[in-house]
């Protein structure tokens, strides 16, 4: 998916509304974070295919409405960091 997808442009107000609503949901749903952020890149000129991708996230949510985050009492509080940089090698 990229910004120059062929196809009909869609109502960008509606598209932005959908992205905005999904962004708020990320508070308890890191599983859709990547998908929402990917869709959020095309807000300037959304096409049919972008809208379809955004709606797929909704379809996914339909089946997973009740999931959320679980903080167990006995968890470890130490901070971990991860990095995936390969320094352009």
């Amino acid at each position, binding site marked *: 998916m990229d910004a120059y997808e062929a196809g009909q442009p869609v109502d960008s107000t509606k598209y932005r509304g959908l992205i905005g*609503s999904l962004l708020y949901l990320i*508070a*308890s749903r890191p599983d859709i974070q990547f998908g929402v952020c990917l869709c959020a890149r095309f807000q300037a000129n959304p096409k049919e295919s972008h809208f379809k991708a955004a709606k797929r996230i909704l379809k*996914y*949510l339909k089946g997973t409405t009740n999931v959320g985050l*679980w903080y167990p009492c006995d968890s470890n509080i130490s901070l971990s960091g991860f990095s995936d940089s390969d320094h352009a090698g």
Partner: protein
Amino acid sequence: MHKIDDMNIIGTKWVFRNKMDEDGNIVRNKARLVTKGYNKEEGIDFDEIYAPSARLEVVRLLLAYACMCNFKLHQMDVKSAFLNGFLNEEMYVSQPPKFEDHLYPNHVFKLKKALYGLIQAPRQWYERLNNFLLSKGYARGAVDKTLVIRKYDNDVILAQVCVDDIIFGSNNNTLCEEFIAAMQGEFEMSMMGELTYFLGLQLKQLKHGTFLNQSKYCFNLLKKFKMKDCKEVATPITIN
């Protein structure tokens, strides 16, 4: 006082709302007088209007910390919070519609405290709350300015302020009670008990941990975009 020609008068209007409970039944009818505070000029009508508010991430962080330290978070809110702020500027409002004084139709009111709709109302409320808490010996977070904190040896009380909603918790119950008493002494508060619903987040504080989800928000989202009856898929993005 009597209207003067070059006085900048702000109009007022009534806003009526019905408060609904979770099932959509009307539980309360609300009427609120608001000012038409738009198109005001900076420097004349207001100076500083920035007011911080707790971020969602910060709320989550507090939740995780409370969970790890094994204490419960509670919630309270301030009734008509913005009406508590004091004004630094001279402001005048017209008489409320339908409540005009027939003997003095040309009079206006001078405001001492903020009203809803004024551009500086959130700032003044934040200022008032902040000054009050500082005077009571609470400190503000060094990085996160919406965090209220107070330490006694091994005990600590933490609170997050999100405009008029306050979530707080402590490993020592007396600290909580002290905080509640202080707030109730200064502002009109309504206690909401244990934290269960905050900014659209549904929370369950259980014995072995805390569960956080947004199923209600998610359901309304599907309804809003008319996807309530769509087919389910297993992944959020297409595979290859």
